[in-house]
């Protein structure tokens, strides 16, 4: 299951917003992946997410694989589109 999302966070995926995202992603059994251009990141890894270097307005692809993929998408998509404060 995947969706292309435009990042809403003013500071992109900096330490604080990235930390918030990772905390939420860890709440799901599913494998969570973020992709930007040709780079992919493990959504449950802060280091991996930070190295994407994603900024506000960037298009990222959110991919969830597993039993709770649908609820992961429901929770994580609005998170990425919001300000992740």
């Amino acid at each position, binding site marked *: 299951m995947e969706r292309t999302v435009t990042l809403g966070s003013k500071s992109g995926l*900096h*330490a604080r917003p990235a930390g918030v995202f990772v905390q939420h992603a860890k709440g799901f059994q599913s494998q969570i992946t973020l992709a930007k251009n040709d780079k992919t990141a*493990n959504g449950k890894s802060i*280091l*991996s997410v930070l190295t994407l270097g994603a900024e506000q307005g960037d298009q990222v692809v959110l991919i969830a694989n597993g039993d709770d993929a649908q609820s992961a998408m429901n929770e994580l998509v609005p998170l990425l589109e919001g300000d992740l404060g």
Partner: protein
Amino acid sequence: MKVLHGIPASPGIAIGSAQTIHPVLSVDVTAQRSVDEAVEMTRLAQAIQQAIARLDALRMAAGGSTADILEAQREMLDDPELKEGADAQIATGFTAEAAITRVAASYAEQLASLPDPYLAARAEDVREAGRRIVAELRGISLEIRLDHAAILVAQDLAPAETVGLNPAYLQAVVTETGSATGHLAIVAQGLGIPAVVGVTGALAQIDEGTTLIVDGERGMVTVAPDEVSRSEAETRLATAQRDRRELEVYRDRPGMTADGVRVEVFANIGSLAEAHKAVEMGAEGVGLFRTEFITAHGIPSEEEQYAIYKEVAATLQRPLIVRTFDIGGDKPVQGLDIPAEANPFLGWRGIRLALDRPEEVFLPQIRAFLRVAASYDLRIMLPMVTVPQEVEATRVLIDSALQDLEREGKLARRVPLGIMVETPAAAVTLDQFRGLIDFASIGTNDLIQYTYAVDRTNVRVRERAKPLGTAILRLIEQVCRAGVPVAVCGQLAGDADAVPLLVGLGVRELSVAPARVPAVKRVLSGMTLADMQARAQQRLAV
């Protein structure tokens, strides 16, 4: 004897023996393991868990903004990719130490190569996480232990390293890097110990156990002092100690003139550590909390700000005046796009920036303030105000924030609102703010700078500004006649010569560095109000 020069970062004088902290932990990144890979992977997993547990304990002890820095490091320690990457390296033959160091370095390089300077700066956090794990693998602690009184000499001291130190043993700090406004300066001032930073080559020139004199006022470190220097330092130390003992009695007394007129003595703070210091020194409240000190890693979210302000308010249990972020061209903030300006002191700063960026800068802070005010005596103060319209616009934002909070079911309370008087414009028209504000506080450093048109950082002209010159005294007199309660929170408020003049002109609250609180109370108690008024009138007439 040798004298080293650095930047004075925290005042005071100390004589003691050096404890040197050398950057340790060199790791051979090509080292091959001699045990089975499963054994090595288990060792690594255990080391990571120990590092996390140690960091958690530190975080509890630290509180406030230091805890936030440690929280970011904890997330990295707990990162599944870090462990998997290191396991893969172990599988190819490396030791756990080499494996984790290689993976941490690889992430650090990737982060450092990103165009965003904020992300690039996280590279150091990953390396630090790697070092923490290596330290656990070797069974050593990265935290510095002090089991006897000593002067610490180090390349630099990270926040995590200073939290665990027993302040009773820490006599002074000397570092090779750092600035007068850096983290270490703030910590040292909070603890009331002298610090000299930016001492180039300190570790090369100071041996473990050498006697040192650290002079935090002049930014000097004397290595292996001769008899003359030593006895001079001992005399100064004895005088300072006697003075401190004499001042003890004033700590728990209210600020009052000799004839019993109340003048509240508050403290200026920038951190939780200084809030503790303010309580310890007997401050009757906080007259200025410089909230921009919490923006070192960008503007924190509303929830993070709420937690910080609440912790400070709970520590104080007395009035807390919070100044909204005083940021601008000379104080850049990560994540905020503030263009470079030719004259940042005359530019887009303080209330001007806040009102132009309500969603990003102002509202999260105001909401956090109003929520803390539901349970504590908190008052809001605005920096860099020039005209009443700025206060009117702020009131509109506060009203809508209160309505939003009520709708969201969050507890909040309307609070007293005041302004900093730091521009001549605000000083001469303060009467026009009546009804809009509940108090005013004179920021003397900026008021002097703007009145005399003298940049206080320009050594060629800074002596031309006269802190107690007629221009300043006349402005203060005018401010005191505006019909608004007036405080002073600039450096002048802690100056023994200035205190009688300020009170004589009508100031009834002085907000000073925490360590100055008892001394200011002593000055107040030594004169009657009538004497202070006479002295002020005499100065105005000259």
